[in-house]
């Protein structure tokens, strides 16, 4: 196996986000604030055949373990995702995402008149609904494209 193949298939330390619905990998990167400008090593597999999802995406981020807030938001667009923590090439922790009741400080409310979009000392907060999220301050509901509001 060549070095190039190893680079894609294995990471030394970091996080593998598996079982992301096909086509959603770039949104996961957006949630993580990864656009390549910081020089992170990131591997993305898109529309990989999957028994469970039909097609799935995989995101591997070298040298970074995710915060709970990031995992919470990933769960909104990838409810079946698993988060694998890798250290020295070994998976040391594997967790399924759990949809939280509430996410704070990650999403921005799309209502320009919401108090959280001004200069007040308050973090955004969203209650998680069965389908979408709802601003805890102004009640605005986001049903689709949740990652667009990060």
């Amino acid at each position, binding site marked *: 196996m060549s070095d190039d193949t190893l680079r894609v298939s294995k990471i030394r330390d970091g996080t593998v986000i598996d079982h992301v619905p096909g086509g959603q990998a770039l949104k996961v990167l957006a949630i993580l604030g990864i656009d390549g400008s910081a020089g992170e090593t990131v591997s993305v597999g898109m529309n990989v055949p999957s028994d469970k999802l039909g097609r799935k995406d995989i995101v591997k981020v070298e040298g970074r373990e995710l915060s709970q807030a990031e995992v919470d938001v990933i769960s909104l667009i990838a409810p079946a995702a698993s988060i694998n923590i890798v250290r020295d090439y070994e998976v040391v922790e594997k967790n399924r995402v759990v949809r939280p009741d509430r996410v704070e400080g990650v999403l921005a409310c799309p*209502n320009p*008149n*919401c*108090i*959280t979009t*001004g*200069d*007040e*000392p*308050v973090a955004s907060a969203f209650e998680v*609904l069965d389908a979408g999220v*709802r*601003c*805890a*301050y*102004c*009640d*605005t*509901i986001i*049903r689709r494209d949740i990652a667009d509001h990060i």
Partner: protein
Amino acid sequence: MRHDHLISAKQLSRDDIEAVLDRAATIADDPPDHGDAILALLFFEPSTRTKMSFDAAMKRLGGTTVDMGPVETSSVKKGETLADTVRVVEGYADAIVLRHPSEGAAKMASEFVDVPLINAGDGAGQHPSQTLLDLYTIRENAGLDDLTIGIMGDLKYGRTVHSLASALTNFDARQHFVSPESLRLPRSVRYDLHEAGAQVREHTDLEEVLSELDVLYVTRIQRERFPDENEYRAVAGQYRIDEGTLAAAREDLVVMHPLPRVDEISADVDDTTRAKYFEQAHNGVPVRMALLDAMIGGEDR
């Protein structure tokens, strides 16, 4: 009521509502003495009825009010945040009444203070104390059970509508919403009504439902919400009522409006027995007396 703050009508149970309305019916005759209480009136938007009726209610209870005055002459003009303003004002008063142009303002402000805070309107969000006086007026004139109510006008941005619709889910009420397509109820309100199992129908034409109504609650279609003046003119005329419009309605129809009106209710309705909007505005004082009594020193606090 055992709420620290009144932010949204969604907080109010049927018991909460009935306790305030029952108290409102008697409080003017024998008001409790809250002679040492101070109520702060923080109005970041213009207000006549809400501000004056809270002011009058506190004074009828023997208390006093402090008022930040117009925004232009307050520290807000210097760039102070709302969070800072309410943190300062809670040191001056036993309760705060807040009106603000941003949705969620009252909810956020309540997180920074320990004194009770009452939302007197947050943008297009909620206006729960208005809802209590609306319900008081409905109960006095039509009863709150087996009620068919039409709510017409600007349902998208109308905060009184959002609060009233939510509160009515506590009662056996059939709610008919009449508006232009562009001013339908917001998704969040429709979601809550659906979750509450409310009986709801939406219409663009009042005639579809007028003859069934016990109550017609009219709101102003707000010209400033329309980007195009012609679009406003096209819809505004369709949602104006006069005696002719009401010919198809029941004789005992109750016509309400949270006021101010512009021309959505013709003056020829004013002198009919159906017109209850001035009575509705007057009810703001006893209902807010009962609310303040419950929140700043009622028996159950």
